[in-house]
Structure formats: C-alpha cells, structure tokens
C-alpha cells in the first residue's frame, strides 16, 4: 500500500498549476488579472513566464506563494505542490511552506529588504522561523549563504544594512535569503531588471549554478526574451491574463506559433544581428484587464486576423490547443497555416 502511494507520488509532477484564475473585484469592474493558466514544473527545471506589463505574470506567481489576500482576490483552480493543493490548505500550512518549500526573489531588492535591519538579521529571521536553532547557529548559516552567493567578506557584510550594499550585492543577498531553507521551488520575479547587464550576467550564472547544486525548480518571470532564452527550459507567453503560447524554449523561439509571439520577436532590436531598416512594432497598446477585447484578446493588434473568416477572432475566444505534446497555442488560425505564415515572414527577415 505504502509503496503504491509512493510510486504514485513520484509520478506526480512537482508543481502543477491547473486552470488558475485570479480575479480582483474593484469599483470599476472585475479585473481578470489571471484568467486560466496551466503548467507543470519538475525539480531542476526552469519555466519562464514572459509577457508585457499587465499580462498577469506577477499576479500568477504571487498566487502560487499564497500572497493574495483572500478577501481581496478571488482565486480558483488548483495549485498542486507535490500533490497538495495550495489554494485549499490553511493559512498556517501555507505559511510553513512559504520560505521553507518555496521562496521568492523580487525585482527591486531595495524595497524588498527591510532598511532598519541588517542583512544578517533578515536572513537569520528567515532561517529561524522554519528551523529551531540558536541565533549563533543561524548566524553561521547566514554567513555561509552570503559566501555561497558570492558576497566578499561575508563575516563583515552580514552586519551591514541594505543601503550599504550595491544593487547587485542586494540581489545576491535576496537570493541568499530565499535559499537559506533550501526551498524546492524558487520564484524569481524580474530578478535582474533593475540591474546592469554585467551584473545581470553574474546573477543569472549564479541562479543556474545554485539550481544545479540544489536541484530546485525555478519560475522566472520576465519581459526580457534574452533572459528566458538563457535560463529557461519551458516558456509560457502571457497576454491579457491568459497563456497564449506554451512550449519548450527551442520550440517557442524557433517555431513560434502565436502571432503575439511573432510580434514580440520581430519588434525587438537584436544585439546579434545587423539591423533591418525598420523594426516591426506591434501596433496599439496592451489591453486593459478590466475591459479586455472580446474574442481573442490580441485580435485588435493582430496582423493576421484576415486569415480567419468572418469575425470569429472578435467573437470567439480561441482555446489553448495542443499541437504536439507539451506544445500549445491559443489562436484560431490553423496550426499548419500558422507555420507557413511564420516561415514566410522569417524568410523575409533573413
């Protein structure tokens, strides 16, 4: 019996998000910040969630950590962490999971760290909440973690305040704090957006090294396609609170399936390519989450609407359909036709 359940457990994905919705009722109307996303993540794997501001990517990650106030946000669906549904467990249980099993690295380390407490104190606190150890032991652990994330002189640095650290060092300290309890799941929300490229490269290398060492699962949320290409195994492209395309990093970059992904890739200036004369921007603006366009949320900005007969894009929301295992896109255009269009356009660009 026990062996049976164990075997079943090991076949279960480490993290499984099923049909997650996060809605905020406001005076102006219902904000559907996340409106149905699904993905799975195994240990040692990295999934990148990509999207523009207001696409719901941060809201989704906060939901996984249970950081939405239940009185303000309406959550539905399932978030299964090793089979345990985080949306139905008690606040107490999620508090004990948060920090020990799953942790978060925020975009802006200066506002995520407390300015009144030393870096050491903050790491010690995070450690002692989940471990019954003395302050001395916890302090040793804090120094060890600071050293592990590449902070020079950790013995001295541990007693300094956040303002005494540079931007890159603060982000390292944040990572040290997130990893102090060896969490199995690390969520990094734009972890390098506030940093310079040379420091960004250091932090991304550090995250990859630590993942190899601790085997953690990582969710990285970013608007920078270069960053996901570098660190992610799978990608989820979000638009207007929904996932519009999902697949492995190679699939999404080399054979993107959704017109929005095409638009994103075509509108970016490239470091590694000589310019074409003009960039191809996506016309218009990202939609408001209170007042999403009817049908496909991307339809007002889509250059390929005419591929679909009638007003179907305006009327009917396309389903997120699997085209091959673990590969899906949300678009009315026939998948074969989409491949043709992409091949045609990509051919013109080269």
């Amino acid at each position, binding site marked *: 019996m026990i062996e049976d359940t164990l075997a079943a457990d090991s076949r279960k994905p480490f993290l499984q998000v099923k049909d997650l919705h996060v809605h905020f009722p406001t005076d102006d109307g219902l904000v559907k910040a996340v409106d149905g996303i699904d993905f799975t993540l195994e240990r040692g794997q990295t999934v990148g969630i990509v999207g*523009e*501001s207001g696409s719901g990517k941060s809201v989704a990650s906060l939901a996984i950590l249970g950081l939405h106030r239940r009185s303000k946000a309406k959550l539905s669906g399932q978030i299964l962490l090793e089979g345990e549904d985080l949306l139905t467990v008690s606040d107490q249980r999620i508090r004990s999971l948060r920090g020990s099993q799953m942790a978060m690295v925020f975009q802006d380390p200066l506002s995520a760290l407390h300015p009144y407490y030393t870096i050491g104190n903050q790491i010690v606190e995070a450690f002692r909440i989940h471990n019954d150890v003395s302050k001395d032991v916890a302090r040793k652990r804090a120094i060890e973690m600071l050293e592990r994330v590449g902070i*020079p002189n950790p013995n001295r640095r541990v007693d300094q305040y956040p303002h005494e650290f*540079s*931007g*890159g*060092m603060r982000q390292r300290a944040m990572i040290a704090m997130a990893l102090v309890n060896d969490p199995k799941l690390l969520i990094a929300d734009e972890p390098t957006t506030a940093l*310079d*490229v*040379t*420091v*960004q*490269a*250091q932090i*991304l*290398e550090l995250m990859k090294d630590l993942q190899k060492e601790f085997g953690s699962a990582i969710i990285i949320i970013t*608007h*920078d*396609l*270069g*960053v*996901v*290409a*570098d660190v992610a195994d799978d990608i989820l492209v979000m638009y207007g609170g929904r996932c519009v395309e999902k697949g492995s*990093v*190679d699939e999404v*970059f*080399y054979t993107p399936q959704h017109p929005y992904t095409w*638009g*994103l*890739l075509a*509108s*970016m*200036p*490239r*470091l*590694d390519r*000589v*310019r074409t*004369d*003009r*960039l*191809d*921007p*996506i*016309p218009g*603006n*990202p939609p408001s989450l209170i007042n999403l366009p009817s049908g496909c949320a991307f339809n007002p*900005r889509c250059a390929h609407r005419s591929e679909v007969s009638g007003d179907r894009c305006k009327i009917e929301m396309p389903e997120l359909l699997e085209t091959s295992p673990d590969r899906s896109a949300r678009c009315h255009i026939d998948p074969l036709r989409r491949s043709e269009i992409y091949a045609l356009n990509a051919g013109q660009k080269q």
Partner: protein
Amino acid sequence: MSTAADKTVDRPAPRKHPETLLRVTDLRKHFPQKKPGIIARADAPVKAVDGISFEIGRGETVGLVGESGCGKSTAGRTLLRLLEPTSGTIEFAGQDVTHVGGGELRRLRRGMQMIFQDPYGSLNPRHTVGKIIAAPYAIQGITPEGGVRTAVQELMERVGLNPEHYNRYPHEFSGGQRQRIGVARAIALKPQLIVCDEPVSALDVSIQAQVINLLEDIQDEQKLAYMFVAHDLSVVRHISDRVIVMYLGKVMEVADRDTLYEAPLHPYTHALLSAVPVPDPRRAAERERILLFGDLPSPQHPPSGCVFRTRCPKAQEVCAVEMPVPVEIVPGHQVACHFPEKRTVV
C-alpha cells in the same frame, strides 16, 4: 557609399561627416561632496564625467552606452548645459557655448533639445498636452506660422497622437503615448540636436519599437542629430551610426556601429557585449560569456591608473600606474587601453 542614406549592411569605411555639429573637448563634471558631520568640510568630489572628448556630426546618431553610474546621463545633460561643466569646452555649430548664459543660452536651446527617460515624471501633470507641447514656443517667445494651436496639433499628428486630444492631461495617455508627447515637445523648435536619455527603457517591448521607428522617421525628415544615451546595447546597435562606451566618467572606446559590435577592442566593451542575453537559446548556450567580478567602483574614489583595472581580466601592473590615453587605432576607432585586442563576442 558614404552619404547619410548609407544604412546598408556592408559598410567598409566609417562614415565621413561633412560637418561637425557638436564638439566636446575634455569635458568634466564633478559634483562637490561634504564630509558627514556638523562642521562643513569638503570631501573628494564625485567625478561623474572626467575628461571626455567627442564629436557629433550633423544628422548623425551617436549612442552613448555604459552601466548605471558611468556618467552617461550626466554627460548628456552637461553638453546641453542643463548642468554647468566643471571644465572643458562645448562647441555647438561652430560657436563656443561652454559659458554662454541668459538670452544667448535660451537661443542655444532652439538648436538642442532633450527627450527624457521617464514619461511620467517629465510631463507636468497639471498642464494639458497642448500646453506642454507649446511650452518651447512660450519660453522662446515665438509664434509659429498659423498660430500655436495649429502648430501643436500638427506636431501631435506628426508623432502619431490624435490632435483632438489637445486638451487632455498626461494621465489620460499610456506610457508610449506620453513618450510621443515628449518627442513632439522636443521637435517643436526644429532643433539640430536632441539628447535622448534612455527614451525607451521605461516602455514595453512592443511599444519600444514604435517609439524607435518614430525617432528614426523624424530624423530622416528633419536631418537632426541624436545623442542616444542608453544602457540597452541592442537598441543602441539598431539606432546608432557611432557608439561611445563610457566607464566611470571616462570614454573607453569609440567606433562606428558595426566595428564596435563586430570587432571591439576594449576589454570592457567585450565584457559588456558578452553579458547581453540574446533571444536565441542555441546561441545563448554556445556564447562565451566574459563575467566581470564585483561592482562599479565609487566615482568619488576611482582606482588609480586605468579606472577599469579593478574588474579587468587583462589588468597588469602598468594599468595601476598609468591611465591609458585614448588612441585612434584606425581612423574613427578610438580605444583607451594598454592592451587592446580584437575579439568577436556578439
């Protein structure tokens, strides 16, 4: 092959510019500091810009890149005379403008304008868009042909805004539209030079391309020059004719765009370019990344000799003693390093 229309891929020789619009010579901007405590004592100044020289030709786009704190924004603001230079000279259209003041400075601003990074902070929230875009006319005491309102509405149309939104306030516009308002204000006086300080870094990827295209179209129409201050090296590669790389207040390398990206000589340029993630997973896995250690040193107490030596993988003893002087290795390609080396990193 060497005209302004030359934007083709294979450009062997650097572009010749018939006329220099702006010449900056040994420009310095130091910010005095006070030591902490109740007794006022002067501390070492922050050397934000410490002796930079460069030129911008008419109709040219010069990219100015570097990490935060390297002095690129200060350089942009100082050459517009928004900050008083500590020393050095600025010549604009043949005239020494380093110390002009009063009415003369105001007239100078007709020739040079600025677009700011933050489309939220750079527009007065209590003024209508019409008033914001007309501000240059009001300040200069100019009444454009056909009246201010017509001129402003033409400008709005030119930058892709609906002229009927003349009486709206900035908060009614999205980030990309606000940046268009900033562009309209900057081109109102038909300047010859616009300093763009990180004009697209606050915008979403899909909106960035719209604003970049707008800036390029306006340049083609009005033949104006841009100083494009940015930390995003991909955007700079796209828009610039020449690129200046700064580090800790000093110029490390200057070259035309293709040379800088394809055959950079300075170890800092190598590290900077190799650190930029490319949106191509296979290439990302293959690329060699030159990781720099540590952070930018304090511009208040820069290292002796070459300012980059504390993070440079090639630093030797001489680097701590002697500041390398910028040398023009081939015409148009200038590098300040004791051990320059051609390397492909992109």
